[in-house]
């Protein structure tokens, strides 16, 4: 076994999409993750899509229990985990049944033949064994007795057959690593660290990996060895990161940049829980995490901490935002900083908790009683979650307002290589609390007015503990300036207008138009559709069509130049993982005939789909 990254007999391709699918117990996420990491270390660009089964452990071997991990590995800058896999690894009949339709025609199909026994076939709903018939004729089929070969190599190590069986995913990894010329060493090292202290397991996993690798070398699997060369990348230090980790780190960074300790009030909910898990680990940054009794207490405690001078944050998914809306409305009224993170999932109601969707935009905008405007930002890639978390905190702390940050299940669990920023290059977030009187009353005495605004209409903040500046605030309408309760109707009208204006005046960067300079069709996107749109538009532009793209990180307020950009293009398409929510906002704001391209199947868009609709729009 060699560790040459590019063996002499390998053909070079510019990208490959591989999908590992198996039972939840088969370790497919780990396998996919390892393949990804090895590819990342090798220097490829990549994008991943883990797909877990629905929340409860389904019976082994069932269709409901299928877990899959798709990764696209490329020698160039890519945007998505790919449209259709070139290679499908199916560890059991259920995996084959559920995912075969995705494989490109003529694609490579690797199956664990041992798993295709009577019991598993029945569970997957096969009447006859698909490996026997001619159903798979259109694919390059590689059947490997993964379980038995793994048991075999483990026997000598003294590993019990039942334990040995668990290592069969490393067989698959070894085989695919051979086929795609991935380096072996990083995986060996990783096994050593991951299973440190459990020597038998280390030995079994390594043996299985090597067996798979050897199977590739020796068995006549008829598959050409392939290499995906490294992608040209900006020099720097890279790590492979998923969206939720990046988001958590962004919040830690925002705390450091602002000099404020972070307080996270949260209640577990898929797919947001991992942010709570991650932040719970970072106490040495002064991060306080609080697992509240429910979402209302989660946001309430975060707001209380913000009032106390912390950077208050709350993380949740759609159902949680719905529950939090009354308190968010209080935050709007109190004009306190607060970051509300919504990792969107399939809805309505409990919906599809483990599938992605982006249908909470209008709730973020309007899901509160009364006129209660607040800024909304959205992340576009896993690594971007880091930047957008900082941006959300920056807006919250600069303008003293709650901010909603939208991410989604696809970004949360998907990962990509991330060139680490230099910490010193991150812009500080200056925060200054009030320490002095700011007003003189009729008797000529100085006093503190909590709602005396600056030129940006921003009020001062004096956390409790500040000598002399004692004051009272609340959710009842306040006199602008003094902050005293006011039932005055004119003042209320004024305050409603001021609250609207102060949000609409927030400075956000202009949108950049990417693509053809004189495009007829403009594709407008937000959130995790970025990758698919960029990929799709790039294909169409490369094919010579007049198409361009803008991406919105800031959904409220919109970038100042957006209206003018929209006006320049004949056709405006808005692909979204909902029924057209951003399209609605654009239409209302700019009276532009933005066409909604909705996808709400719990699956992200592929670049191919974007390519199709864009071409379709060009035809019109």
């Amino acid at each position: 076994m060699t560790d040459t990254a590019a063996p002499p007999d390998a053909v070079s391709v510019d990208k490959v999409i591989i999908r590992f699918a198996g039972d939840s117990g088969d370790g497919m996420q780990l396998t996919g993750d390892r393949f990804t990491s090895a590819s990342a270390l090798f220097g490829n660009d990549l994008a991943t899509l883990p797909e877990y089964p629905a929340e409860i452990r389904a019976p082994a071997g069932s269709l409901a229990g299928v877990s899959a991990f798709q990764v696209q590995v490329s020698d160039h800058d890519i945007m998505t985990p790919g449209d259709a896999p070139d290679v499908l690894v199916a560890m059991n009949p259920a995996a084959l049944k559920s995912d075969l339709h995705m494989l490109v025609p003529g694609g490579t199909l690797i199956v664990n033949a041992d798993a295709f026994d009577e019991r598993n076939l029945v569970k997957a709903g096969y009447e006859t064994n698909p490996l026997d018939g001619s159903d798979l004729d259109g694919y390059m089929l590689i059947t490997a007795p993964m379980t038995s070969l793994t048991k075999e190599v483990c026997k000598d190590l003294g590993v019990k057959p039942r334990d040995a069986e668990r290592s069969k995913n490393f067989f698959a990894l070894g085989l695919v690593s051979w086929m795609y010329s991935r380096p072996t060493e990083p995986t060996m090292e990783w096994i050593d660290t991951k299973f440190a202290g459990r020597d038998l397991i280390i030995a079994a996993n390594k043996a299985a990996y090597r067996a798979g690798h050897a199977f590739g070398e020796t068995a006549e699997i008829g598959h050409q060895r392939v290499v995906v060369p490294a992608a040209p990348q900006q020099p720097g230090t890279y790590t492979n990161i998923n969206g939720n980790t990046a988001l958590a780190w962004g919040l830690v960074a925002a705390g450091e940049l602002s000099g404020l300790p972070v307080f996270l009030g949260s209640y577990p909910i898929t797919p947001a829980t991992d942010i709570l898990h991650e932040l719970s680990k970072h106490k040495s940054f002064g991060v306080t995490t609080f697992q509240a009794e429910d979402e209302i207490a989660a946001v309430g405690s975060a707001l209380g901490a913000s009032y106390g001078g912390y950077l208050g944050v709350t993380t949740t998914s759609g159902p949680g935002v719905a529950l939090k809306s009354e308190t968010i409305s209080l935050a709007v009224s109190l004009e306190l900083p607060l970051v509300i993170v919504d990792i969107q999932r399939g809805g309505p109601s409990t919906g599809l908790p483990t599938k992605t969707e982006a249908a909470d935009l209008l709730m973020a905008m309007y899901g509160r009683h009364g006129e209660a405007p607040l800024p909304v930002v959205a992340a576009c890639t896993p690594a971007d979650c880091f930047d957008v978390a900082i941006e959300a905190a920056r807006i919250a702390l600069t303008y003293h307002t709650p901010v909603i940050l939208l991410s989604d299940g696809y970004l949360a669990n998907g990962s990509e290589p991330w060139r680490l920023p230099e910490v010193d290059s991150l812009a500080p977030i200056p925060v200054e609390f009030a320490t002095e009187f700011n007003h003189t009353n009729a008797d000529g005495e100085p006093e503190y007015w909590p709602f005396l605004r600056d030129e940006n209409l921003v009020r001062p903040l004096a956390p409790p503990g500040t000598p002399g500046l004692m004051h009272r605030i609340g959710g009842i309408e306040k006199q602008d300036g003094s902050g005293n309760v006011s039932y005055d109707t004119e003042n209320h009208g004024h305050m409603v207008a001021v609250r609207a204006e102060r949000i609409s005046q927030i400075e956000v960067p202009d949108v950049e138009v990417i693509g053809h300079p004189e495009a007829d069709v403009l594709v407008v996107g937000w959130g995790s559709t970025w990758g698919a749109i960029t990929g799709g538009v790039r294909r169409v532009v490369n094919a010579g069509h007049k198409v361009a793209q803008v991406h919105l990180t800031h959904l409220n307020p919109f970038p100042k130049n957006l209206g003018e950009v929209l006006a320049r293009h004949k056709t405006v398409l808005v692909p979204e993982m909902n029924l057209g929510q951003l399209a609605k906002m654009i239409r209302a704001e700019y009276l532009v005939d933005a066409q909604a391209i909705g996808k709400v199947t719990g699956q992200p868009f592929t670049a191919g789909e974007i390519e199709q609709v864009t071409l379709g729009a060009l035809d019109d």
Partner: protein
Amino acid sequence: MTDALNVATTDVGEAPETSRSDWQSDQEVRWCPGCGDYSVLTAIQLLLPELGVRRENTVFISGIGCAARFPYYMDTYGVHTIHGRSPAFATGLAMARPDLDIWVIGGDGDMLSIGGNHLIHALRRNINLNILLINNQIYGLTKGQYSPTSETGKVTKSSPMGATPRPFNPVSVALGAEASFVARTHDMDRKHMQETFRRAYLHDGAAFVEVYQNCNVFNDGAFGAITKKDARDDMLIDLIHGEPIRFGTEGERGVARREGGVQIVDLADVGEDAILVHDELLTDPSTAFSLSRLAEGPHTPTPIGVFRACKRDEYGRAVADQIANVTASRGKGDLSALLRSLPTWEV
């Protein structure tokens, strides 16, 4: 960077002396004339100067309701949040700012109806809050509907034929929720209020005080049978730590144990030695619970005072300790190192 909050908080050292008027804000107090809330306010404004605390370190957090207007009248920091959520807001504040004295105040609707869950969780966690539940057995602010403490059969606008459910006994609820400090007082006795609030203030952790308060507009006289001056001797059983639980003009009645609880007895019948000596410190809340069951409602002899005051870890400090310990052992977090904590590679 984030080790200390960059708020200009008070220097250490003695707090300056204050008088009652220092604690009064410039806002006109707007309860109905005769409302029991006035005397609660007075009790607090008289107590705080005695406690020698700083105004800027004192915060009043409330929900919505008549009682919840309280913060506006105190010249301290204060937030009038939303209905039922004051314990949640205060929990975040208390965890963030252990240097503050936080009072949470609200009505029976605010804290036991819509806010019941936050209340019991704050008690369970033993968050460092002084919680005053101003119980008038009615919704005052919304003009007179029955509340979770209204007596069975109460006729109100929303229960024209009488409300059928059984009320909560707030002291029992708090004890069932693991509260470490539980007390009761009433608006007709300023001294007793002051002393009870002082004890709540001194308690480390969540201190829960039920305050019987007369809403003279929508539920006048709800507590009259026990709090009227001439009724008190016979109807209020003052719990005093270390003393036999006796009441009556001559101390002629008392509380004694009986099979499965406690009961009211005549000393003449049972003798002095049979009288239960009150012990707030018992770790087992069973006796405190029994005492809370003595009266079904405020019309038979009713215990007031501190039912329970026992030491338990305060939540905010426990959380802060974890942060301090990690920081001490691993050093302050280094952002650059964090970003490099997963496998990295160089290009």
